């Protein structure tokens, strides 16, 4: 943890690190949506999106391997004078920070990407994992998604929103840590491509108990409902976000 904090401090100061030469990391964001903006979830729902707006927070890149099953130290463990590195039931060791993009931005994935994000800073060296995070400009929603879901001849027209507090139930500070960054070596100014996979957001959602709604008046998924809990868990899925250096 101390190494991580020192590396981040170094990056934000704009100084050269003793572990690598400083570089600019141009950043682009895209989705894996097809032309129809549709996908089939693990529970068999054929979802077609009509809107998919969300706001990113900081992105961080690390040289540690992506997370396997893991748990991060809890608040009380952080208070201990000497921290344990990891605890039950799993572990993620981010290693050294090698890059970051700090500026929050808002995207609509239904527009044609890839979208250009603010440039980030980094240092030369290997990169293997990343942190994706959400933000909520002006204290509003972090994510607003609408569309339809079909299964067994029935169609549900829905709208679902998520606040940072929804995501934070499963991801501390709405940061999804340990995402896969296709293993590579940063050796000069590079472009990082972030791919967002909305299908993963909906993989745990069962629309059975969501009112059907209409295209003109979709049902707002109740924030206290099971489908909403499932959606919030989906936003926290590591596999919903992939990073790679664009060649």
């Amino acid at each position, binding site marked *: 943890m101390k190494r991580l904090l020192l590396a981040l401090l170094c990056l934000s100061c704009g100084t050269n690190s003793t572990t690598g030469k400083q570089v600019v990391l141009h950043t682009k964001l895209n989705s894996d949506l097809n032309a129809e903006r549709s996908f089939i979830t693990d*529970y068999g729902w054929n979802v077609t999106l009509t809107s998919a707006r969300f706001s990113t927070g900081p992105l961080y890149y690390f040289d540690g391997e992506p997370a*396997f*099953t893991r748990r*991060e130290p809890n608040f009380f463990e952080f208070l201990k004078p*000497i921290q344990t590195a990891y605890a039950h*039931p799993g*572990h993620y060791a981010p290693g050294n920070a090698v890059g970051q993009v700090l500026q929050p931005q808002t995207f609509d994935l239904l527009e044609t990407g890839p979208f250009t994000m603010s440039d980030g800073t980094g240092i030369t060296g290997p990169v293997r994992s990343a942190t994706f995070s959400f933000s909520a400009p002006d204290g509003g929603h972090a994510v607003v998604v609408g569309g339809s879901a079909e299964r067994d001849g029935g169609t549900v027209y829905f709208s679902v929103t998520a606040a940072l507090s929804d995501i934070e*139930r499963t991801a501390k500070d709405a940061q999804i840590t340990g995402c896969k960054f296709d293993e590579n070596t940063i050796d000069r100014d590079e472009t990082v491509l972030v791919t967002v996979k909305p299908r993963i957001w909906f993989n*745990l959602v069962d629309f059975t108990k969501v009112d059907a709604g209409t295209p003109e008046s979709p049902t707002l998924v109740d924030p206290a409902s099971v489908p909403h809990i499932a959606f919030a*868990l989906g936003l926290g899925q590591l596999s919903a976000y992939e990073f790679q250096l664009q060649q």
Partner: protein
Amino acid sequence: MKLKVCVVLCAFSACGPGKGTEKFTTWGEEFIEQGIPDTAFVDGWSVHYDKFLVVFAGIKVADAKGNAGAMLTGSRLVDNTKPGRKDLVTFSDLDAQAWDRVSYQIRPAADGAELVSATEDDRTVMKNGGFSLYVAGAATKGFVTKTFHWGFVTATQYNDCTQAAESGTPIEGVVVTVGGTDTSELTTHGDHLYYDRLKASPDPAIETSLRFDEKAAADSNGDNEITLDELDAAPIDVTKYDPSGFDAPTLGAFMKSLARTVGHFRGEGECTISEAK
């Protein structure tokens, strides 16, 4: 930390060259030997294991730069329901020093593993199924008993094993002293398979719990034997189970992820885990 270890090491070794021994054992603790009591579960179930077969391989000690001091070739098959600590391998003639990097694997043994506290039949089960971990037993709640025979084919690498901070400071790896024998236990935790989260909640008020109600309900044919196929067909209840960022939409996928977390180091010590290559 490193300085402290060096100071301790020098005190034992008089800062001169010398050799020592590192011995690796395994133990399943009371939960695997005697069972997990109903007080440990939030829904009143208890679990008793008849088999807890583990294939250990690649046990290795290395220095901070990754230079190996010793490594187990082959693999060992252990039934940790058998009482007590079992010897896995002993590395003698190791340089007396801090060996910061201790690692091991729990992985299938394609050509069979050396038996430690398991039977020839156990080895056949593991080899034929391609299993790294196989657990069999029964869960009981009131008058209901559900049996299970679950084989996991996961291959997991446990790296950078760190001793728990029982003394106030976690210690990376092991310290071998001149003429001494240090013992490291590769502990297996039998309760992990029933966790309801794959990582702890950011909210410290939300604890990780042991649950079995949903596994029992997954017994779709009602024969009181819960199979992995039945668990694979059972979606997780998102109000009770948190995949914590991992792709675990079913109870089967959830438990397969948890199966990777049974391996520990010297009791409560931890290792980073990844897919074994």
